[in-house]
């Protein structure tokens, strides 16, 4: 039987410290989430009286009240529609752009890449009024369509930076081999780059999904208050009132809006971790 080698004292202290910090960090994340979940089954009195206690019953009344009061069902459908369409558009634009930038060897490529990176410098709040004017001028104010076009524009800088970096790690020999077999540029992108870039694409999808799903200010102003169109983040605040907010209902509504986020994160997290790890190894 193999004998375990004892770690030096310094490493053991380091291991215990990092382990402790990791558990503290985990607790910092878990406690609010736990509070969130248990509160969504409680009344205001129970929430304020004993915030961390388990609920006396697991009654779903708060959820049904939240869904009914704020029309959350429709709002989720609107958010899903807007988010999915914007994600598809983002990928349709970012993938070929990143492919071209990753393959570019000249100065023009570097300039174009810098232009995309400049997008980071524009504060989103500062762009609100010009964006509003644009929406009004295009006749797309109070439509989801405009936001579906706008969200990818806000996401392109980060998406392109991530995907371009990822694609640069792909050996050029693979592309050259495919070209020698007669593959066109589009085929090289589809059949060589995309399969290898799946973790990078998942990362872009996940980051943008979170940003699109949680967007508040732009959908509030640009999509407007029509319940047939408004998104989940615009609908949710109607559960907060000036006096006497039912926090159980508010928590239930918020938890309801988080479920799709959790679902998507669960689906994509492994690919994202792979992308981060490959970045760490290759970087």
């Amino acid at each position, binding site marked *: 039987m193999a004998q375990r080698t004892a770690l030096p004292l310094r490493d053991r202290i380091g291991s215990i410290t990092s382990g402790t910090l990791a558990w503290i960090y985990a607790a910092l994340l878990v406690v609010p989430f736990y509070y969130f979940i248990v509160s969504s089954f409680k009344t*205001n*009195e129970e*929430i*304020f*009286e004993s915030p961390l206690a388990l609920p006396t019953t697991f009654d779903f009344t708060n959820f049904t009240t939240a869904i009914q*009061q*704020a*029309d959350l069902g*429709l709002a989720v*459908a*609107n958010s*899903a*529609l807007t988010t*999915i369409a914007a994600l598809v558009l983002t990928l349709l634009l970012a993938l070929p752009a990143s492919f071209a930038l990753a393959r570019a060897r000249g100065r023009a490529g570097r300039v174009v890449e810098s232009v995309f990176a400049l997008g980071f410098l524009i504060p989103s709040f500062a762009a609100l009024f010009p964006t*509003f004017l644009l*929406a*009004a001028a295009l006749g797309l*104010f*109070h*439509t989801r369509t405009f936001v579906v076009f706008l969200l990818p524009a806000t996401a392109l800088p980060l998406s392109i930076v991530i995907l371009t970096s990822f694609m640069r790690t792909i050996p050029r020999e693979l592309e050259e081999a495919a070209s020698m077999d007669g593959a066109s540029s589009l085929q090289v992108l589809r059949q060589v780059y995309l399969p290898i870039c799946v973790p990078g694409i998942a990362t872009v999808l996940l980051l943008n999904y979170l940003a699109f799903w949680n967007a508040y200010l732009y959908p*509030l*102003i640009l999509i*407007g*208050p*029509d*319940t*047939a*169109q*408004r998104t989940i983040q*615009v*609908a949710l*605040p*109607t*559960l*907060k*009132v*000036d*006096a*006497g*907010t*039912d*926090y159980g*209902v*508010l928590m239930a509504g918020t938890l309801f809006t988080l479920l799709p986020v959790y679902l998507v994160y669960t689906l994509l997290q492994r690919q994202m971790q792979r992308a981060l790890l490959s970045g760490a190894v290759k970087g």
Partner: protein
Amino acid sequence: MTHGISRRTLLGAALSGGIITPLLASCGALVPASSGAHTLSVHTQISGAVAGAQTFSDVVAAYQRDTARRVALLKNGSDLPIVFETSTLAGKEADVAIVNMMGRTLAWTRLGATVPVQDFLDDWGLRDLIIPGALTEWTDEDGRLRAFPFTRTNWPVSFNTALLEEAGVGEIPTTSDELIAAAEALRAKGIGPVTVGGSDWSGQKMFLQIIQGFITEAEARTVFSTGRISESPGAIAGVEHFVELRDAGVFVDNVQGYTSDSELTQFNTRKAAIVPAMSSALALVPAERAAEVTVGGWPRPSSGGVLEHPSVIQSYNGHGIWISENGMKKLDLIKPFVQHLYSPEVTDRFILESGRDMSRITDTLSTDFPLVAQASRLRDSEVSAVMLPDLLIPEAVFEPMIQATALAYGTASAERIIDAFEKSYQAA
């Protein structure tokens, strides 16, 4: 070589179908309801969790059913004014807005975002239906009626008489000396005296209400519009009185950190015996608690002061029905809708189903919301009405003033409170 469908393609198709099918199925509901020349669009704050939201939705649904007219409800909470204003800039605002008169909305009529409605009062037969005081409060300095007053606010003080009795206090306090004595007795029994949201607008209202115990309405108008407490001996006395009450332990411990929500919870869980709360919040007090509560006014100053009775903030500044520029093109749709909202049946539904106080003249009293009914029954011989100063305070002063009043619930001296209060006006 076979060219069958791969498992990945199949999975992708299934997933896509799973996502797209329900979306397409609900497309009918996803079509903007507000579009259409024959649809009346109503942008309302009576939505979500606001008291009366369900009643309003039901009333509108019934109206559509009975008249075959289409009404599109657009809903926002406190963010309604900014959404309405940006919509107005794009010329796509709703025909009607139902929102209260505070901050940004105060400027709407003057700036032309909404139209004055005084001419419609007689034409539509509404003048005699609405409480005259409400019409006065909703009329601006140039004589323009900003909107039709719809709901109103009563702001009494609730006393848990069972807790007061436990502490040996037989009567609800009506003077400041009685209040201080009651607070001492309650504290001796481990019960919190007065709870209020010291860190938010509810604490601000309480502070301004206490000051009004020492100044006339005319003085109050000057002080709240200019912020110059130090130029008003009455207002200074009011602040000193506030400090006296605070230092005597009238407010619960750590009141500086409470909000309007936590004050209600403290009251509902019997942690505190006294709470000032507006009528829409009174509707949320559970029946078990309401059974041991008597509604009255804030105890008047035992010495000095200008009030004959305990004070109650009374205001007609609830939700109003505003007509936009777009709405002027649809007056034929707006008139029957507004007339319907002022019908006795609709007024009764709001009072009986959701415990709202309405600006329409009515004898109907809430039955399922006993505290709201008690508040409605308070007469001038029992309480003195003081104003809700929201109409006088400049919009930019609101938040800084709340910081100043939060300071007042801490340990600050009267001089420091006055200084912070005045600075909130200067900074804005």
